[in-house]
């Protein structure tokens, strides 16, 4: 009698389990526990954990905070759209706005210094995808997500939007310089 018929042994729950089958279950269980431990271990000892610091905000409030930082620390503008390039002091709070279809402003950061990056969206959800690092974070409207970042390599980084946000989604690219 096979899997498409009732079990031939009525009291199937008393049938012994094959040795190899049992060994495999034990191995699989140990592996599952190992994987669980890794996540906890990384919270304690690892250097890359997504922060849980989140606040409810409004579009106006967040935009005002970003504007204040931009007004204070802009060093130049780039591209035809005159996007400000902002060079904040190490350790400060920086604000990145995601909106249809741009990341605003551009930041210039120092290698090895920590910054508190605040993320929020002005309209739809957007996806913060830092390239070529490949760090990906979901960005929601009306929530302010605070992530402490420490760039560890020099270079020019792009922020690709990787949450579908309408017809201009593919043009939504921002930039961070690490000097």
């Amino acid at each position, binding site marked *: 009698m096979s899997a498409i018929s009732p079990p031939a042994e009525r009291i199937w729950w008393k049938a012994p389990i094959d040795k190899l089958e049992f060994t495999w279950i034990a191995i699989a269980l140990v592996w*599952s526990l190992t994987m669980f431990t890794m996540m906890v271990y990384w919270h304690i000892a690892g250097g890359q954990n997504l922060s849980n610091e989140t606040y409810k905000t409004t579009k106006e409030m967040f935009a005002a905070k970003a504007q204040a930082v931009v007004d204070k620390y802009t060093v130049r503008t780039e591209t035809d759209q005159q996007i400000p390039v902002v060079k904040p002091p190490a350790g400060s709070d920086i604000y990145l706005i995601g909106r249809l279809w741009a990341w605003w402003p551009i930041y210039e950061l120092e290698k090895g210094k920590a910054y508190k990056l605040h993320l929020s969206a002005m309209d739809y959800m957007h996806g913060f995808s830092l390239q070529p690092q490949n760090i990906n974070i979901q960005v929601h409207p009306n929530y302010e997500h605070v992530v402490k970042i420490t760039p560890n390599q020099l270079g020019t980084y792009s922020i690709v939007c990787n949450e579908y946000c309408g017809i201009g989604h593919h043009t939504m690219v921002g930039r961070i310089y690490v000097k």
Partner: protein
Amino acid sequence: MATTYRICPRSGLQFDTAAEKLMRWNAVAGVLALLLGGIMALGVVLTRWPAVHLLPADQFYLALTSHGINMLLFWIIFFEMAVLYFASSTLLHCRLATPKIAWLGFILMAIGAIMANVAVFQGESSVMFTSYVPMQAKPHFYLGLILFAVGALLGCFVFLGTLVVAKAEKTYEGSIPLVTFGALTAAIIAIFTIASGAIILIPTFLWSVGYIREIDTIMYRVVWWAMGHSSQQINVSAHVAIWYAGAAIVFGAKPMSEKVSRTAFLLYILFLQLASAHHLLSDPGVGSEWKVVNTSYFMYFAVLASMIHGMTIPGAIEQAQRAKGYNKGLFEWLRKAPWGNPAFSAIFLSLVGFGFLGGISGVMMGTEQLNLLIHNTIYVPGHFHATVVIGTTLAFMGLTYFLVPVLFKREVLFPGFAKLQPYLFGLAMYVVALVMMGAGTLGVSRRHWDMAFAGSPMAYEWPGAAYLMMGLTGIAGVVAIIGGGGWILQIVFSLLFGKKLDDGETRSTPIPLTLPPQTGAHAAHIGTPGTMVLALVFLVSFILYYFVNWKYLSSLWGMA
């Protein structure tokens, strides 16, 4: 109308005539959705192939939305309804409870599917199958999905009702078959899923017609994925049940241990539907504790269950083959398997691809910190084409080869193509899944019209390897579409023009299933060393891949 039963002369299965008709209609509706979704796949994949870049942006997003809903929802769920009716009424030799309600369910599902497709093709509803707020589709897009879900819910109740009828009318002895147990798992998860779907889609519908002002985006994602993820568990339960059924039909294989396999299905019910957190690992507003507990204790129990099925099914085949005398060495049982029988090859490719490609990548993505590496990249569709296409769709295709003569009473036309089809479609899909995962590892976004960022003031230049992988996605994708389209043509032609086979005896009373007398003697025990070796190869690949990703993560910018 009196219930009649047909005994299929080719398989010995007994079909309630009313149930049989429902199975046929549901399966056919599913294949139509697959056809539409497949045409859309062509548009999607030819646009993501950078050298071709076929469609303009608006049509690409429209095609992608249609591809998602037709494949993931309509094709799979219509077919699953057929599987539920088969696993209850046919396998238990029982009449289907309330066929009228089953028809009502079918009609609601059909209306819902058509309505949602109409909304998508009218434009202005290209919101993807996830329809994340605050992006808004037309009201009839949501309404279509709701009607479809209500119809599927009715189908689940008919399935449960049939189990009750079978028990009450004593059409079988002992416990329900393992495959029916697997289908029961799927149905229970489906009820939870559809409830979550109602909780999120009904307010979203009301919002789209203006009765609700705003829907919170985090709340939406949490509840939406309680539906979206659990519905993948329905698929897993259903295709695992089909793997067991395939092993039983092709080899007469008996589960290694009923107890183990049933417990593993039970773990799906207990833990899988809670795993929605792994879709929010890179989201703000939900805490690490929830993420870790939800993805580990809850998800790993489900992973454990899949690892168990992944071993016990080949193990059961190995036992059956060794009992037939294929005993040489570790792998004679596998070498001598009927590789030319599409019901077998499809299921075997489905099992291996689901485990190696879908399983390993899924667990990697489902690890809280590692998720940062791939969230919303094309790695994600790479992963789920290994699960829902190689796992679910290919298993359904394999089962259909068995069902054409048995349920549709037609001979399969073009048997030469049938031998090849699972390899053509399955192996091409292996490549599609792998290269999408490769491109995603390099960061390439999913749901993205142009990797050259035309029109952006600050375009990013992807590495050449990313372009290469997306080109390969295009090529292998086209091969897969030929393999899948070939399957549709073959099945449709067989149903229309295949040689008619005789119906077999029709009777007005069912023949109950009886068990052989209990002798108390156990059959000689047969070991499964070959399967164990395969399982260990799997484990080693899993461990290596898992830690390689941690190594990669540790090289990134510090984050806290």
